[in-house]
């Protein structure tokens, strides 16, 4: 009993680490499944980083569309990133986090364009913004913003 009380902080860490691993993985898997499903649904909206619209698109209705998401890391990813930062190299736990956030932001932007009846989005720009993480108590997250101009055919 005394041993448990003495090592309460270690126990706390292990429990959080375990919860973070299980819940984080579950969340990530569920999110990826949802992303893949919606990417298939919105495959009709094309996304380009071109600055100019295709020549054929002379009669279009252009409008600014954007999508953003703030995604939190989990305790497991947090600890792993700390370890990675000691040895350098790829921080895999964060690579998948950013990948999810960026794809989610693009999907939300596509969804907005789709509602406007647009067939493509051009001049897409990305912006990444890290929230918090400056001290131990602050909330850590990363915001991904995607924005561009949607082109919808003009209906007559």
């Amino acid at each position, binding site marked *: 009993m005394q041993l448990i009380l003495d090592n309460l902080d270690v126990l706390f860490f292990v429990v959080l680490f375990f919860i973070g691993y299980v819940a984080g993985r579950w969340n990530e898997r569920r999110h990826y499944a949802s992303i893949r499903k919606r990417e298939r649904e919105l495959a009709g909206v094309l996304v380009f980083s071109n*600055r100019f619209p295709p020549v054929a698109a002379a009669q279009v209705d252009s409008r600014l569309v954007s999508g953003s998401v703030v995604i939190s890391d989990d305790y497991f990813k947090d600890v792993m990133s700390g370890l990675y930062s000691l040895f350098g190299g790829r921080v895999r736990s964060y690579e998948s986090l950013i990948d999810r956030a960026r794809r989610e932001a693009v999907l939300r932007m596509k969804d907005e364009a789709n509602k406007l009846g647009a067939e493509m989005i051009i001049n897409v720009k990305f912006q990444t913004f890290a929230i918090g993480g400056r001290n131990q108590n602050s909330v850590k997250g990363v915001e991904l913003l995607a924005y561009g101009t949607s*082109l919808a055919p003009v209906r007559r």
Partner: protein
Amino acid sequence: MLLSNLEMVPGRRVAKHLGLVQGSTVRAKHVGKDIFAGLKNIVGGELKAYTELLQESRDEATQRMVKQAEAAGANAVLNVRYATSSITAGAAEIFAYGTAVVLE
């Protein structure tokens, strides 16, 4: 008001350039929402309160930019860009800027 991040509008001609317009807002986070977000930091997932907060701030910055463009007599803002920067640990500035133009 037409907003676009292109440098032109397909099928329309820019009659007049009115120069740079901008809008910005500085927002701080809410302590109550932060407690929930702190829990999310353990299990991962989207921080919806933060997504909404930043989205609202971006809308407000855009609104301020649009107001400035309206005052200048523009009917469109082209080449719109966004920028986000953290001012202190708990607050962020959202900045929107573009070129106000009159379309024919």
